[in-house]
């Protein structure tokens, strides 16, 4: 029995647009183990949110999803029909969104919304559901939990709402939680609290956690493993330590140079920058997606697709020809992460 909670292989998302097919996500392969945190990091438009929606089968209707494998705890959850998928969603995997105000229904009380998911998936009495809700609200650090059940979302602050969302995601005891920018809309102090809470709960309930974010600080602090996405592809994977101490892909290195680090970057000095802009993903692009912005670009970067090269250490891979030369290894199976 493998320890893998989620395994995704060669996930591809195409979105038809008037000007051609948008290849939003291109053969992304990820896996998450029980008790592990995988961070998917990238800038806007890199396909990280679509990837998470594709795993939950919540993509917009016109998007076309393909994958050679999409397994939750060893069982395929690819194209199993909306009925069975909705049994799994909220029960065995749940999602936490960025904006807690819009993901809670303003017309129902916190208690109704918390117990609804549980009573939908499990045969429990109203009373048991309520007890579980109170238990989890206390777990996520909400005081006077029992009295909060009767409140409506607008009566809570942003931080409290996000805590409620986390409690809701935990109601059925899921194997996997996908959190899409869970702290971006929150203040810094609240952000730290929420992340602290997520990390603690994940350890306690031994779940898999996929955290999607653009914030490298969050990634460094919470991730076990990291997948860096750029223009629809995973360009680099590795443990948090590998990625931050020894970034291999020029894009990862560029990103790290862009952020000021208190105590390390000289105050007022120029920060690094990645020139140019993200290429359009409409139509096929030969070669490396980052080539147009890369300072180390070579002739053969733009001719053929760049495979994902397995690094020297296990779990490490880089989609870059330079890294290949550095390690001298054979290319791994396309996109294995």
């Amino acid at each position, binding site marked *: 029995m493998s320890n893998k909670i989620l395994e995704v292989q060669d996930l591809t998302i195409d979105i038809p647009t008037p000007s051609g097919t948008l290849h939003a996500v291109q053969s992304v392969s990820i896996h998450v183990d029980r008790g592990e945190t995988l961070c998917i990091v990238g800038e806007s438009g890199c396909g990280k949110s679509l990837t998470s929606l594709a795993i939950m089968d919540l993509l917009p209707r016109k998007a076309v999803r393909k994958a050679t494998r999409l397994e939750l705890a060893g069982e395929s959850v690819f194209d199993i029909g909306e009925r069975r998928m909705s049994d799994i969603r909220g029960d065995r995997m749940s999602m936490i969104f960025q904006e807690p105000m819009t993901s809670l229904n303003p017309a129902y009380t916190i208690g109704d919304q918390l117990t609804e998911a549980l009573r939908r998936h499990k045969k429990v009495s109203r009373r048991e559901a309520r007890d579980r809700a109170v238990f989890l609200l206390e777990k996520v650090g909400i005081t006077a939990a029992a009295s909060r059940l009767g409140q409506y979302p607008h009566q809570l602050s942003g931080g409290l709402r996000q805590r409620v969302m986390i409690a809701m995601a935990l109601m059925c005891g899921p194997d996997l939680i996908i959190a899409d920018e869970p702290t971006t809309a929150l203040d810094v102090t609240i952000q730290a609290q929420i992340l602290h809470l997520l990390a603690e709960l994940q350890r306690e309930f031994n779940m898999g956690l996929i955290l999607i974010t653009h914030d490298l600080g969050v990634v460094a602090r919470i991730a076990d493993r990291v997948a860096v996405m750029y223009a629809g592809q995973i360009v680099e994977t590795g443990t948090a330590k590998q990625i931050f101490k020894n970034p291999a892909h*020029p894009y990862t290195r560029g990103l790290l140079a862009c952020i000021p680090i208190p105590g390390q970057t000289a105050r007022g000095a120029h920060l690094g920058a990645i020139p140019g802009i993200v*290429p359009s993903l409409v139509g096929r692009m030969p070669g490396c997606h980052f080539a147009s912005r890369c300072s180390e670009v070579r002739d053969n970067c733009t001719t053929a697709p760049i495979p994902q090269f397995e690094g020297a250490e296990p779990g490490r891979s880089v989609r870059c020809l330079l890294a290949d030369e550095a390690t001298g290894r054979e290319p791994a199976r396309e996109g294995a992460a």
Partner: protein
Amino acid sequence: MTDVIKTPVGGQGGSILSSGLDGVLEPSPGSLLRKRIFGHAGLMIGGGVLLIIFLMAILAPVISPGDPYDQDLSRKLIPPVWHESEKATWEHPLGTDLLGRDYMSRLFYGARISLLIGFAAMLISGVIGTTLGVLAGYFGGKVDMVVNFIITTRLSMPVVLVALAIVSLVGSSLTVVIWVLGLLIWDRFAVVMRSATQQVRGLDFVAAAQSLGCSTRRIILSEIMPNIANQLIVIATIEMAHAILLEAALSFLGLGVQPPDPGWGLMIAEAKGMIFFDAWLITIPGVALFALVLSINLVGDGMRDVTAPENRN
């Protein structure tokens, strides 16, 4: 390893930016709009029909087969040419009415009246409603309260009854009908413009204009108005169709356009006695009215689709 990337690119990265810009430069909003307009079937069909009716109205003196006011009782109730009756003649392609007037000419001249009333009433109500709505939306607070009260007062008046009452009091004429309708149907303009203004007012470019020292007048006219113009156009078309239908209703009740002027509503009213004998007398102006209102609404709907915010879809 990292030194290559850390090379500062500097703030004045014009060349770098321009190299990236070439590939993805979006088409200008104007050309996008043109493309969407010509790709919108409803808008094209509605626009086509509207254009035909418009040409009918403008060219009425040229293309009419006869004089719309010329009565000839000896030639009354000639049916249109597609009718089996042997009386049908190409001299009167759509036949003649009860008084022997050429029906096609009356239809063409009637288009002038419908369009004139629709357009003028829409203009009057548009000015009133937009002014009230934009002021309420921009200033909020007390101004908003007062405008809201005025809108509520207006909404509590039944349009047709009030129009009937006024027209029967002051007497009917084209000018009176236009003013009465214009003064009565501005409510939708006010409501929509108010909420549209509220939305735009909250955007940062309005705050930016304020901190540049722009006058309120300038902010409303050159920052806010261009951004609510698309919604204004949509409401304007709806209200124009609304005014045309109201005018037809008033004319049908005998309080709109007065005989012998050839309004479409009046033509229907004059023919209502003949509905079981000469149905075409009602069908022809009825279909014309239907086509006009439908085409205006199609244009309005189409405008809403093509001018929707740039990033929708």
